[in-house]
């Protein structure tokens, strides 16, 4: 039987091999790894470095630069709340405070039961139906306190 880490390595190498022929393959590879595992396992970074013939430091530098990539799994659900100006103009800041209170976590935090991770996002392009949010990739417009409470309950079921 394979151990978990060799399994991760095997799956990662499959992804890397498939994408390394692209021009500028590093971001597509990191995205694909995150899609596959839900995060970018740190043991895959040296594998990427070897395949692309760049240094580990370079891969680490890129991985840490971008807000999207995580080095550990998120909660079962990910709630992204827009904090940008258009959403603020419609009461977004108060909703953001309420969300942190309801879930008992700060930005980037995951509830202790692993149910949900709260992330800030700076604009979902839904500025004409602010305040907006995204729950597991589903867009939500004109968010209000009631909907937020429903979401907070739903994600913990």
């Amino acid at each position: 039987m394979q151990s978990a880490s060799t399994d991760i390595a095997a799956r990662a190498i499959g992804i890397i091999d498939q994408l390394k022929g692209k021009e500028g393959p590093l971001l597509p590879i990191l995205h694909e790894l995150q899609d596959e595992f839900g995060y970018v396992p740190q043991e895959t970074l040296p594998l990427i470095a070897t395949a692309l013939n760049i240094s580990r430091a370079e891969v680490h530098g890129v991985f840490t630069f971008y807000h999207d990539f995580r080095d550990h799994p998120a909660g079962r659900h990910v709630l992204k709340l827009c904090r940008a100006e258009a959403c603020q103009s419609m009461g977004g800041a108060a909703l953001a405070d309420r969300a942190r209170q309801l879930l008992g976590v700060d930005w980037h935090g995951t509830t202790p039961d692993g149910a949900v991770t709260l992330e800030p996002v700076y604009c979902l392009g839904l500025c004409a139906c602010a305040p907006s949010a995204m729950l597991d990739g589903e867009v939500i417009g004109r968010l209000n306190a009631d909907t937020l409470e429903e979401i907070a309950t739903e994600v913990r079921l």
Partner: protein
Amino acid sequence: MTVTFYVPRDSGALALGAEKVARKFQAEIESRNLDARIVRNGSRGLYWLEPMVEVETPNGRVAYGPVKASDVAALLDNGIAEGRVHPLWLGLTDQMPFLAKQTRLTFARCGITDPVSLEDYRAHDGLRGLENALKLTPAEIVAQVTESGLRGRGGAGFPTGIKWKTVLDTKGEQKYIVCNADEGDSGTFADRMIMEGDPFVLIEGMAIAGIAVGATRGYIYTRSEYPHAIAVMNEALDVARKAGVLGASVLGSSYAFDIEVRVGAGAYVCGEETALLESLEGRRGIVRAKPPLPAHKGLFGRPTVINNVISLASVPVILDRGAVFYKDFGMGRSRGTIPLQIAGNVKHAGLYETAFGLTLGEIVDDIGGGTATGRPVKAVQVGGPLGAYFPRALFDTPFDYEAFAAKDGLIGHAGLVVFDDSVDMLKMARFALEFCAVESCGKCTPCRIGSTRGVEVVDRISANIEPEKQIEVLTDLCNTMKFGSLCALGGFTPYPVMSALTHFPEDFRPAPSTHFAAVAAE
């Protein structure tokens, strides 16, 4: 005869429940055994009415909205298929005042066609620009774009034709067309709407650009926050490849051109063109010093056209109707049309494409209808997080690159965020600096350090610690950031900060009661 219903798949409509509405229509059509079909169009841009459902009638399309899934059965009972009157009835779509008064050139098809149907696209004048371009020499295409007066719609306003000519005149075995679809500015959504509502117009514009400058490869760099735009764009690219619009022979010509979508990873600074190129190459999104210009040494060091979505999507109509036709719209050196994105606390939020020249007041009060909350408008931020806050006193400013610059503002990507009188402008100034601190790529000191120090200074002002002295420091700091930063992130953050300070000084001074208390204590 088959009835056609239109239920948008635009993410703004989806965010307001369009998916449920579409599913309900489908279920009702099946259970009632109706001869009907559903087209998932883009949005017409009237977001206060989304999900806005339309039905094709002999007199034209009739609109209903905002429609909830629970309204669908009643709408069908009431004769929506014939366009009958109902409380949600809005009349003929084309005659709705918000749409009838627009000049839709770039957004001519958005919300009308099925975004992934090439037949629909052709039936609505699509591909005519590309067909015309194939009859011209590259230099003639570039001349048309230059003649049209089109300027970069991403914010910088650089003449598109001149950029293209530089790439055309630069020798290189491989050249690239890069579409900047990293629309991170709050209050803007025009790029998203085009990608979701009329992706072929962007594909056509990029193909024309490729032929004009001798590039065979194109990239659309967009945001991970836009999953629906990515999906529609990829669907459309597949269709375009199968139909021979893209590939080894563009529409049967000797030109080859293909496009790939690339997705960013949540870094605002990658909307800056050189940071975007770094990111596309697989590196940290760190801004490059210019020169060399991307036109000379861009993606992978090769000659590269990098244009915003709206700039590229405006090219097909120029090649179709002619440079003179396009240039006739607008004012001064701002030619053609601009898709205004009216957002935030505003009654009629949405996309409004019109010739340059409307005043800010006309846009916010007349078209936007004032605030959604019904309170007075206090400020309007124009041009995204790096744009200035305008007070009512400047509502006579015409929407034009130069006119806004003359008032220490910028039109940017033409997004407008409206705020009512409950906004605290000191908080907004603080937010602008905080955002800059979070998103700074870190390469240049004024941006990296200045933004953090700026937050601290604003915090001292709000704590009433020597406010006059702090305001002086803040002004000086903004000056350093404006002139010393490498790119627009650090360079333009002073716009929201200084405009808030200049136009709303009362929010930066202690309230009179505290002030008197302080005096009394002395």
